[in-house]
């Protein structure tokens, strides 16, 4: 599979989502630049849309979210190419059925390219020196762990700074949006804050 890169913005929002709801399972989508017409096949994840922290396993709100996100990301030249999930229990970092089903769906809609990022809850810490997730890529009917690095040192540094601050309180996920549609699931303000840290 092609190389995978995750931008600072995507990585930080993913991490802040997990940090905001330590008592819940969380999940979300990663958007990649649409590279179908380019020769460079590196998958560059440029943004992350946090989805849910309440029940992850039910379809209707997931479909509502994917409907909105799909239309949005086409308008900015991106595709839905990744999915992340943090399980409820601290030590549980396995891909469960929900992750497999959603991962497969993304793969089917994206030319067989998809990545699933399973967050290791024990690495959600400002002192962490490793990427907070394990990357799974599809191989036949299974999902294999891919050990290549996806982020740079600078990303881990910025993530650590943000985790130590109260930044996670500002994060809006799709559940927050459904409760109050004036809340922006793109988290533009948070994007600016992340940009200022680099």
């Amino acid at each position, binding site marked *: 599979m092609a190389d995978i890169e995750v931008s600072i913005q995507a990585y930080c929002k993913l991490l802040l989502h997990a940090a905001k709801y330590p*008592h819940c399972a969380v999940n979300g989508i990663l958007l990649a630049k649409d590279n179908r017409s380019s020769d460079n096949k590196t998958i560059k994840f440029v943004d992350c849309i946090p989805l849910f922290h309440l029940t992850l396993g039910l379809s*209707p709100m997931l479909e509502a979210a994917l*409907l*909105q996100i799909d239309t949005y990301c086409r308008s900015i030249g991106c595709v839905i190419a990744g999915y992340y999930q943090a399980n409820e229990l601290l030590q549980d970092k396995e891909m469960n059925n929900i992750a497999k089903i959603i991962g497969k769906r993304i793969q089917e809609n994206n030319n067989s390219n998809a990545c699933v990022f399973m967050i290791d809850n024990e690495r959600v810490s400002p002192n962490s020196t490793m990427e907070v997730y394990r990357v799974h890529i599809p191989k036949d009917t299974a999902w294999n762990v891919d050990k290549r690095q996806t982020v740079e040192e600078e990303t881990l540094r910025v993530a650590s700074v943000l985790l130590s601050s109260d930044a996670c309180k500002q994060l809006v996920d799709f559940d927050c949006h*459904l409760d109050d*549609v*004036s809340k*922006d699931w*793109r988290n533009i303000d948070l994007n600016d804050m992340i940009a200022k840290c680099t």
Partner: protein
Amino acid sequence: MRDSLTVVQLWDRFLDQEKNKLGDELWTVYEQVCVAALDCQRNELAEDCQEALGSKFPQSVRVQRLKGMIYEAAGRYHKAEEVYKEIIDKDETNMFARKRKVAIMKAQNKVAEAIEELNKYLKLFMTDFEAWMELCDLYLSQQDYGKACFCVEELIMSNPHNHLYHQKFAEIKYTMGDPDSMFQARSYFSQAVKLNPDSVRSLYGLFLSASSLAVSGAHKSSKEKQSNIKYAAWAAQQLKEKYTSVQPEHLTNQTKVLESIEKVLESLTEKTAS
């Protein structure tokens, strides 16, 4: 709404120093800080609070359960279970200790045991709505949608005006996906919208379930198909009005939410024409 970090911060910065001025409120504060401290992995602070409460109320079951929770936070589940067993032996009606036993199994990923224990609990305390919802979520984690529905049905029977239960039932039926379930999903989403017309989740649910029924091949008549298209269109209209009235215009334009809803509606009428 749990905000344990703020509670602990308030204790650290102000309340700890001003303990003497709190009077009798001090003991409730100690209890709340204890639980908040456990959420934030401040186990020593939790123990300090528990000891202070223990000196003041040595025979208290309420204080004893905090001891159990402290053991849980430290991962000492056997000790925690002993504490809760003692509480239940002293007082059979103690709901809290029984629920903590379920929590311990959940924490160890023993889902089947947690389900069994929670079922036993609900036979004794069948009006505990929080427990029914927890059991529903445990069944959902095992993809046992039938039993999850049963739990929500219990909730709907006791609280027929609560739109959240109708909505949850509808979401589970939608997830099951077969035509009969989708039909029920649509009905329950409709009821949820009737009970709370502002619920965006229920409106989306109605929109998507009606759309799904309109394009599926399982109609008995084309009149049914037309009805579903009408329901979908109505729900779509409510959603669009909600978005345009609440969201700032630039946000609506940039996130393309109206376009995404239109896309689905157009696909319904295309499929009718063919």
